[in-house]
């Protein structure tokens, strides 16, 4: 029986295939995934490693007898047994069919969809939408096929199930939320059965299916992208729980492994919000809701339901020099210019700023939502130009006054008692 060493990084779903196969066959597998024995990006670039595995990628297998293999499916095949490979030519061919299906039909779409949510890859709406459709298509095919079958080939777990399940692992954990996966009841049944087999469990641990579709993690992407800065990240987040750190490490490494050459260039600037703990509030989702749905009946209830008062703060601002304000259209331009200069803040702030009064007698006021508990403007020179011309008052997120201000300013409807006699003229939304 095959025995040897598997080089990989922790949490590599490709290596899982080989590891699960070894669980079924009883092959002795020594998994080497942690420094100093194996350090991704270093060990696999050494001449010694490249001599054995010219591609320089992991997982890579080195048998006790000197057999060297790369490509996860080949390693899984080698470490498996006849039952996993298919006992008749027909079964073996079907196993091959599904192993190839897993890599050519599932994997590209799975990565295109999931990697941005892990911050490994830049988000592109077109690509993500395309990937979602592609995943829907493969799940439809699988669902129909599994209607009359318990496992993919014959009545036993084979390499087909191992490969397809491992390639669907990240999608099931990250993005296939209940509403999305619900129509694919046969695939769900099969997947949950697979990952709960003792041989899978020994490798994957407990697999938790996703509750809510993960979205692009811009913060993580920014963190993961400057690859040179390896030591810095750790110091920035001393509070992170250990597990999370480990996960990040894994994702960082995955990035290095899976990264394609045509990825967008790395942004040079450092994310000023990187030090803040992750927030559950999804700014993009809120802005989409605000833009597309009715403010009073949908967007505001959504906001108050999801608002994370630890991670975000609300502010009321008024223009300090209202006597300088002249014609309404000029005031409009002032606000518009400010929004432009705050361009890079869009991911981390939202506001509706309203103009009250008439020509030669008007005032600007707005309600802002921003990341963190402090005013964000000092963080960047671009952002400092306008904010000093305004008064800023932090709003208590639990007070009735705040609820009223948020409702009036964001819906642009109401008495605006705070503005005295000046009538609402128009609003401008920063989103």
């Amino acid at each position, binding site marked *: 029986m095959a025995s040897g060493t598997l080089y990989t990084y922790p949490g590599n779903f490709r290596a899982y295939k080989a590891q699960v196969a070894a669980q079924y066959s009883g092959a002795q597998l020594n998994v080497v995934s942690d420094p100093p024995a194996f350090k991704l990006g270093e060990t696999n670039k050494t001449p010694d490693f490249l001599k054995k595995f010219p591609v320089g990628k992991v997982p890579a297998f080195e048998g006790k007898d000197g057999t060297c293999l790369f490509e996860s499916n080949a390693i899984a095949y080698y470490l498996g047994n006849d039952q996993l490979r298919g006992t008749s030519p027909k079964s073996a061919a079907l196993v091959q069919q599904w192993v190839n299906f897993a890599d050519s039909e599932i994997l590209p779409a799975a990565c295109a969809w999931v990697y941005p949510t892990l911050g490994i890859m830049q988000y592109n709406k077109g690509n993500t939408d395309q990937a979602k459709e592609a995943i829907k298509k493969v799940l439809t095919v699988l669902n129909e096929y599994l209607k009359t079958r*318990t496992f993919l080939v014959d009545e036993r777990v084979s390499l087909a199930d191992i490969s397809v399940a491992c390639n669907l692992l990240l999608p099931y954990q990250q993005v296939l939320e209940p509403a999305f996966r619900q129509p694919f*009841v046969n695939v769900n049944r099969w997947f949950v059965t697979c990952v709960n087999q003792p041989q899978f469990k020994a490798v994957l641990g407990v697999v938790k299916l996703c509750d809510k579709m993960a979205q692009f993690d811009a913060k993580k992407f920014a963190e993961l992208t400057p690859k040179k800065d390896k030591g810095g990240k750790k110091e920035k987040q001393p509070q992170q729980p250990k597990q999370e750190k480990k996960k990040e490490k894994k994702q960082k490494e995955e990035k290095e492994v899976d990264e394609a050459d045509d990825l967008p260039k790395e942004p040079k600037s450092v994310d000023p919000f990187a030090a803040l703990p992750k927030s559950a509030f999804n700014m993009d989702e809120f802005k989409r809701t605000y833009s597309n749905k009715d403010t009073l009946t949908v967007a505001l209830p959504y906001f108050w339901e999801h608002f994370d008062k630890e991670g975000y703060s609300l502010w009321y601002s008024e223009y300090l020099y209202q006597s300088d304000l002249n014609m309404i259209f000029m005031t409009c331009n002032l606000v518009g210019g400010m929004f432009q200069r705050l361009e890079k803040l869009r991911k981390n702030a939202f506001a509706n700023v309203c103009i009250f009064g008439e020509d030669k007698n008007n005032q600007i006021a707005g309600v802002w939502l921003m990341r963190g508990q402090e005013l964000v403007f000092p963080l960047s020179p671009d952002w400092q130009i306008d904010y000093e011309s305004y008064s800023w008052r932090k709003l208590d997120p639990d007070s009735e006054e705040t609820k009223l201000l948020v409702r009036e300013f964001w819906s642009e409807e109401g008495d605006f008692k705070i503005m005295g006699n000046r009538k609402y003229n128009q609003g401008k939304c920063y989103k």
Partner: protein
Amino acid sequence: MAVGVEEEVKSLVNFLGLPAYKVTTHGDLKVPQLQTSNGRTLMGLATISKFLAKSSASNGAKLLGTSPEEHAEIAQWLEYRVTVVDRSVEKKDVQAMLKELNSYLLDKVYFLGFHLSLADLVIYHGLHPVMCQLNFYEKQQYQNVSRWFDQVQHYPGVQQHLPKVVFVRNSLYTSFDH
């Protein structure tokens, strides 16, 4: 429907790799009886199959479940076998039972958990005569039962004396209410 219950007990003995026991049936209802090695007599399928599973050091624990919930579920399906499966003789009763099982098995591979248990074995034996009677249309109608049944009969060591029931993988009938 107690025909072949002796064989069923014997096949469970074989499946579990236990030494042979003396198995007879009792009375008009053909209630199985098993004589244990110390001379005691156990009656009834549920009692006997639990006893046998407990006697098997190797397979028993997995077949009987590991948590209190699993024990309870096993007990429930043993009861279901005796009170529902074995008593469904009329066509409409059989249909109602198949419909119920079909919806139960929609999102499951085995009756409980993610591995074969005593529940699968006793329902498999109980349903075997029923499945033999079904035509392909009906097998497709009760697709989840069929899929489960096929999985269990292919499980190494389960089928034994029973003839294999044939299922087709592709849908033969495209339009029916599901």
